[in-house]
């Protein structure tokens, strides 16, 4: 339902024109009254955190139901506001964040916001809302330059009253300081002071837009660290990894160090350089892996990593302690498993990551650039951010095996605080077939490489002919063939021997005969082949030809021996020969054969 329809209340039911008017002025809210405003200004860190509890009332007999109310900001403070959040405190103790929109009010300087109420406030009704505001760089160091031994004092200038477009009936302001060491403070209404707390008020019946300068000068040695600029690069890979890299420029924005920096004092006296920053903690996501912390000149060795259940805590120590005005620069990076942050439904993907992550407690980021590198081929990119960000034109990024570049979303935002650590969702579509592109590229590259090598090796690119080398190669080729053939032939005898053995056991003459037959035929083939190769060698004019003929001769002797032994075996089986004589003959044969084979081997080796 639209807010307008909710506004129809019994008292004005009949007046349609009024209703229309209300619709028109629903945002410009009728005259409300602040019954009570309790404001706490927390100045204990380098931020000014203002939280106010407001008791808003639509006075009875007021102009009508209020769908929204106005919040105002003092004119000087507006550029310093980093965060504004309004919540309503319901009876059920649950807190609802309200929608806040910036508006303008005519004739008034400063900044104004309209806060939409969950339900319109009818005249006579009340509502309690709590407002939280964070301001950066409002605490000014005074003196602006201090030596190493001195403590840091800052001045805060604010308003004694809660700045509001509505009259306030009663209001109090409580100022929380960083220490009890207060140099001076404004004493409007005789504020009470206890420890590190100042309490102003209660002030009664304050008209709208009241201003009165509140000024506190006090000691504040909390780390005045500011991230002057930061670039956060998130690179998404569909192979299961998200790489995050943050480049951080850090500066100590407290009172500037004047005079020397003495390492001796810094090491020996505990309160020397009390406002300097030695180290801080950065909390990384629990799944962070392969964390690195480095700068232009290498790894920064002074850091510690602590892996906790729900986070990875990194104690970061810059290379040197940061005194007022000193700055440093570093890069921190880590990998995350993508299943925790990347969701998909078919080709639809959604990346849910923090827009900015924790760097140190109470962090202030003056300027942030976020770059989200999506996989090559991601399309229809759409970003859902929890707060307003400035999108710059998308870029292309080329890295490993990319051909047409990965889309990069670039976004900027200035003046951010811890409250901005929220998720941003990037929706995009990605065709899964594209995943194959990279492996195929690698395969193709290797294919081309091997193919070139093959072509280079197989083809002759020389521009001159070397007949001698060619002949040599031919001969080598033929001899190689001869070698294999001779070895094959020797193998044949072994096969035949096996056949003879089998025959001896089984006494089956057919095995022997068939063995003999195969031996004969194959031997013939091989021998003739060798002979043809021999003749080829001859035509090449190689002297190896003689050696081959020698092999042939030796081989025929071997064959004879083999056949002889088979005949003997036949006779043995037939009982025509005694066993002893057979064994003796066999020994003789085998010795002879051994010799012949050795000779052949030697010739082969010589080849």
């Amino acid at each position, binding site marked *: 339902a639209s807010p307008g329809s909710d506004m129809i209340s019994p008292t004005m039911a009949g007046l349609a024109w009024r209703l229309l008017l209300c619709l028109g002025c629903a945002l410009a809210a009728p005259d409300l009254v602040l019954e009570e405003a309790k404001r706490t200004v927390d100045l204990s860190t380098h931020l000014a955190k203002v939280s106010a509890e407001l008791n808003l009332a639509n006075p009875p007999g007021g102009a009508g139901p209020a769908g929204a109310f106005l919040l105002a900001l003092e004119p000087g403070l507006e550029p310093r506001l980093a965060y504004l959040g309004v919540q309503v405190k319901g009876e059920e103790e649950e807190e609802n964040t309200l929608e806040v929109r910036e508006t303008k009010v005519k004739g008034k300087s400063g900044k104004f916001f309209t806060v939409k109420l969950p339900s319109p406030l009818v005249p006579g009704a009340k509502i309690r809302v709590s407002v939280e505001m964070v301001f950066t760089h409002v605490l000014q160091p005074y003196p602006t330059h201090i030596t190493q031994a001195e403590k840091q004092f800052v001045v805060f200038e604010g308003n004694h009253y809660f700045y509001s477009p509505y009259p306030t009936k009663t209001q109090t302001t409580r100022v929380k300081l960083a220490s009890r060491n207060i140099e001076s403070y404004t004493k409007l209404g005789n504020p009470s002071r206890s420890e590190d707390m100042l309490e102003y008020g209660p002030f009664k019946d304050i008209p709208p837009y009241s201003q009165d300068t509140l000024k506190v000068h006090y000691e504040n040695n909390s780390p005045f660290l500011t991230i002057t600029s930061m670039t956060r690069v998130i690179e998404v890979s569909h192979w299961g990894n998200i790489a995050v890299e943050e480049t951080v420029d850090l500066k100590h924005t407290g009172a500037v160090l004047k005079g020397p920096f003495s390492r001796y004092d810094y090491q020996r006296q505990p309160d020397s350089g009390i406002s300097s920053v030695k180290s801080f903690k950065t909390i990384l996501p629990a799944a962070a892996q392969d964390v690195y912390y480095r700068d232009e000149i290498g790894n920064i060795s002074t850091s510690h990593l602590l892996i906790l259940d729900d986070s990875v805590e990194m104690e970061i120590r810059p290379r040197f302690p940061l005194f007022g005005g000193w700055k440093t620069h570093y890069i921190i990076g880590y990998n995350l498993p993508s299943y925790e942050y990347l969701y998909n439904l078919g080709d639809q993907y959604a990346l849910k990551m923090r827009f900015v992550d924790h760097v140190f407690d109470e962090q202030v980021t003056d300027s942030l650039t976020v770059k989200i590198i999506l996989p090559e081929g991601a399309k229809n990119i759409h970003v859902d951010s929890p707060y307003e960000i400035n999108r710059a034109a998308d870029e292309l990024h080329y890295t490993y095996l990319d051909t047409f570049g990965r889309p990069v979303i670039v976004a900027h935002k200035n003046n951010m605080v811890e409250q901005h650590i929220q998720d941003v969702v990037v929706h995009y579509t990605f065709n899964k077939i594209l995943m194959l592109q990279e492996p195929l590229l690698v395969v193709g590259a290797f294919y081309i490489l091997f193919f070139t090598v093959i072509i280079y090796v197989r083809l002759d690119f020389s521009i001159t002919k070397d007949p001698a080398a060619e002949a040599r190669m031919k001969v080598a080729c033929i001899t190689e063939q001869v070698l294999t053939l001779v070895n094959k032939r020797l193998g044949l005898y*072994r096969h035949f021997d096996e056949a003879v053995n089998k025959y001896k056991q089984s006494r089956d003459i057919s095995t022997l005969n068939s063995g003999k037959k195969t031996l004969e035929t194959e031997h013939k083939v091989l021998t003739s082949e060798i002979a043809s190769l021999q003749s080829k060698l001859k035509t090449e004019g190689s002297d190896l030809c003689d050696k081959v003929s020698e092999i042939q001769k030796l081989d025929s002797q071997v064959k004879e021996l083999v056949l002889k032994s088979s005949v003997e075996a036949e006779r043995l089986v037939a009982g025509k020969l005694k066993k002893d004589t057979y064994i003796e003959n066999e020994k003789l044969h085998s010795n002879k054969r051994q010799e012949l084979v050795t000779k052949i081997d030697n010739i082969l080796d010589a080849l």
Partner: protein
Amino acid sequence: MAEHSGPDSGKHKANHANANSAALLHGRAGAGTGAGGLSGGLSQPAGWQSLLSFTILFLAWLAGFSSRLFAVIRFESIIHEFDPWFNYRSTHHLASHGFYEFLNWFDERAWYPLGRIVGGTVYPGLMVTAGLIHWILNMLNITVHIRDVCVFLAPVFSGLTAISTFLLTRELWNQGAGLLAACFIAIVPGYISRSVAGSFDNEGIAIFALQFTYYLWVKSVKTGSVFWTICCCLSYFYMVSAWGGYVFIINLIPLHVFVLLLMQRYSRRVYIAYSTFYIVGLILSMQIPFVGFQPIRTSEHMAAAGVFALLQAYAFLQYLRDRLTKQEFQTLFFLGVSLAAGIVFLSVIYLTYTGEWYAKIHIPIIASVSEHQPTTWVSFFFDLHILVCTFPAGLWFCIKNINDERVFVALYAISAVYFAGVMVRLMLTLTPVVCMLSAIAFSNVFEHYLGDDMKRENPPVEDSSDEDDKRNPGNLIVTMLMLMLLMMFAVHCTWVTSNAYSSPSVVLASYNHDGTRNILDDFREAYYWLRQNTDEHARVMSWWDYGYQIAGMANRTTLVDNNTWNNSHIALVGKAMSSNETAAYEIMRSLDVDYVLIIFGGVIGYSGDDINKFLWMVRIAEGEHPKDIRESDYFTPQGEFRVDKAGSPTLLNCLMYKMSYYRFGEMQLDFRTPPGFDRTRNAEIGNKDIKFKHLEEAFTSEHWLVRIYKVKKLDNRETLDHKPRVTNIVPKQKTAVLDL
């Protein structure tokens, strides 16, 4: 019966398989006994041999690459030491601004106020190589940072060196020796010392270029083909662009030709090779801006020209001899010789009077560098281990079976040994030739003993595996012994690499009793402080050792750096360091110094600090300003250099002393020693009450290793303690303005 005929062909195959796998195993062992066994007959020699060679070379490359990674694994991917920082910075400039910008680069951050024309004063080969690799990788969208390219360049090139050493040795001896040589050069400490990951220096690529040039030279002398000679010239060109050591090539090759002539080994091949090489090589080498006209001007290139002329004359005489009668020839010969002698004599006189005797003028600076000291015997063994013992044997083998290319390697060995003896640094040029000759020696030994084994095994009289062992116990013992030596060599190489040559020296590490490691990162802490928290144009004065590091890491202007070309400037800085504060302040004012950086090791006991180098500063300053600085002032009357109370007052009040020990007198390091006890020099300092008038401490690193002082601007003029005299003469308008 069947048992006998069976094994025949089977054994035949098995033998070869064994030989192959054995050779493979040797290759894997790193020491690489290589292919001693390869020369035995193989059934398919070409295929196996090339596969084996390929595998062994690949493994040698891998072993060489990985043993250079100690520093990266222990610390990080970081540029080491001093000179590499400059090379890195220039490469970075090249990668980010392009080649022409690099050639025209005027570096205003060095040698303030003079600056340095970098493009014209460096050997650009290293930067161009790294830049080219980076460019190609980025063209292929492989986003590697230029720093990583620089860090890993030397290890990658060590593999190329191994391959070119293999090629060269193969030309000289045989393939087996080549493989051994490749394995040696891959892991030998003498070469690793200059080519660990992070040591991004000229030598890393120059040794490859050296070996490859020599290979191509040997090849061209062997073939006499212009093609190979042109390749040789191109490789020589690369070498000239990479390292000043190219002078070694341009002297060794002429020497080779000259000796060949003397040995009556003149041939048409040598003539073609040398004539082509000299002319093309000369022209190519003159294309490097830094070399320019040196090859035709300076004395170290004259030998090449002389040999060229000699070779032409010799060839001409050879030609004439065929045409003339003996009598005519003799008169012509004598005439020619006397003329040549006259010319040589005159040119030598000319050169003596005009030549640049650089070393003479700058001796203190050159002598102050530790790597310019003469080599000790220990370091020969430390860097080369067993190779230093075996390479004479290889040399002997070469000389015994002499041919053209072995003359070359013999000359290479002899000259390299001489140079290595003169300077520790030149150990680097000795290492490759030692590897090659040792490989030849080892290969010969293996061929003899393992080869015998094979022959005796081949007659397979009886099946007798145990008989083999009985037959040649001597062979086996020798082989085992050699393998043991190689193994010990490999172990030694790894140990030396790990312990001596793998420290980045930018990052220091100390070990606790329980083995945990403390990293002392003071250098980078201070440099980074300078980079972040000083004015961009601040000028930092330091001793020249740290110039390149300050420029590279802190990105600030320096007065002097490791490119010690201007002695008087360095002497001025030395003078400032060794003067008292007031005098130093004047020098620093005149040099526009904003910060002074010194290295002080007294807190942690770091011995390479500025106080220990201080005498060199004094000496160099004395060389230029003998009236103001005298070395003897810094010694005690007994002639000792002491920092304690007995030290000379000049020392105790000089700027360097004061900056080193400022507020150190209050510091008590432990309870056994008094406050102000210097751990490096084991003495309680003599001057504990140090006050500065013109300086103030700007930064001191965590372990006090680096201390930076700020030079204060001049104070405002003191206010007058009496009123200015009042006159009733009204000054003119102009003067009034001036007075203001």
